[in-house]
């Protein structure tokens, strides 16, 4: 038994997929290298916020150290990926240079967080969390500046 509607359904599916693919192509084409890069590194902001929250919560005794370590390694991967993206991007240096400086600082802050956790130093971890908050604010400014014009 063949369902008579199946071929028609496949056509409709193909049509819609084609429209979506075309939309995707258009969306990609109109992006400048700067916008493209900033879009790709977007998760960095969310990760900075996560690390900040994790630091604060660890300092308040709400999270185990192992969780912090796991989060840090996941975040570090994201930072490194973003760094690679900006190294190979054709975006203007006005965007890439501050971005890469920020990423380096983020990695340093992550390392500081880890040292604090290993040492069991709550004050140091809380300090690093504040540092991360500052980085996140800078990252957001960067994102907004890139999107603005």
């Amino acid at each position, binding site marked *: *038994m063949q*369902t008579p509607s199946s071929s028609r*359904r496949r056509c*409709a*599916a193909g049509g*819609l*997929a084609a429209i*979506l*693919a075309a939309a*995707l192509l258009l969306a990609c084409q109109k992006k400048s290298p700067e916008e493209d890069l900033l879009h790709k590194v977007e*998760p960095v*902001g*969310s*990760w900075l*916020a*996560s690390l*900040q*929250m*994790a630091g604060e*919560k660890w300092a*308040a*005794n*709400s*999270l*185990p*150290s*192992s*969780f912090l*370590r*796991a*989060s840090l390694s*996941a975040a570090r991967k*994201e930072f490194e990926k973003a760094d690679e993206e900006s190294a190979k991007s054709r975006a203007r240096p006005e965007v890439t240079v501050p971005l890469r400086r920020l990423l380096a600082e983020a990695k340093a802050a992550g390392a500081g967080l880890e040292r604090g956790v290993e040492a069991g130093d709550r004050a140091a971890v809380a300090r690093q969390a504040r540092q991360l908050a500052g980085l*996140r604010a800078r990252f*957001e400014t960067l994102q907004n500046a890139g999107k603005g014009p």
Partner: protein
Amino acid sequence: MKKWLQLALGILTAVGGFFDMGAMATSAQAGANYRFQLLWAVAAATLIVIFLVEMSGRFAAVTKKALPDAIREHLGFTFWIVPFLVLTLSTYLVLATEIGGVCFALHLVTGLPTPLMALPVAVLAWLFLWRSTFSTIENSTSLLGLITLAFVVAAFHHRPPAGEVLRGFVPSLPGEDPLKYWAIAVSIVGAVLSPYLFYFYSSGAVEDRWDRSYVGVNRGIAALGMSFGSAVAMGGIVVAAMVLAPRGIQVDDYHQAAMMLTDAFPFWGFLLFAVSMGIACLGATLEVALAMAYSIAQTLGWNWGENLDPREDARFSSVYTGALLLASLPILFGVDPLKLTVLAMASEAAVLPFVALPFVLLMNDRKLLKEHANGWISNTVAVVVLLVSLVLTVVSIPLAFLGGGG
């Protein structure tokens, strides 16, 4: 009165099919990205799922047959083979996801790497299935599953702005990134409307030996069980909206969701999250592995039943054994649990029409169901589901890639 104990089946179905790995991820993402704006998607999906679960329970109570069983019998093998294959494939992905959920929960508690947990978790789930009867699994999962209510408690604790929450129940367009918005909306529907859920529920009803007298109770069980799952999923959205969204945390990784409950429960929050996730996903693992074995055994006419000794249904027990082992492989080889979840949710949304069409045809068989066949209300819902699911099929896979989902 005793019949109401069957509520356990409803809650088991809801824990497994509803508040599982997929719903955890989609609720957290929805709340973190769009605050309360996607609550309507959960509400709509819940309403639909109640109707569909009611239908599958009614069918099993009246005919004493589970759905895959009856579909093969009445619509024929040539009709069933395609839905059956796509359903099995999607169910496999979901099973792998749920195993990933248990592994991740254990990783949160122990700090050991997630892939390391894959085999032990598969073996643990297998032991449960091998050793226990259906009602043990049903009762323990639904009882332990109540711990996920922590999300609802936390949601109230945060005192979310009532007006904004209510507005979330009215569909609205997002200010920015509509692709991502729709991708999450689709995966919410996919997470809630798990196709295997109806097949599982009807098999469960047969395992629990329902008869015609359960038709009325079934309505209540479907509504209450699914509302339970829905409440937890909505709780997840509200908590994410109150905790993650203001901090600018998006859920690109399950680690980012794991801190969700620490605002409401500073000391226990982290453990509560891990335990909720572990139990919900373990319950789901059991349910999905059983669902797979049910549909294969019923399609081929094997002896089946979780209440039988494995020696009496060796093929049935071998299927869930093999399924669990195979499904532990993606996590074992280091596939990211969240990526796997997004893929599984998209596949669930995509296979829905294949699964819904035979189901709807069967519910209208008046020779079989007589006065219990679908009335116009159920049929209207069913047709809406079919149409919506057709659209979902077309858009779900591209959206999952475009919107990123995470």
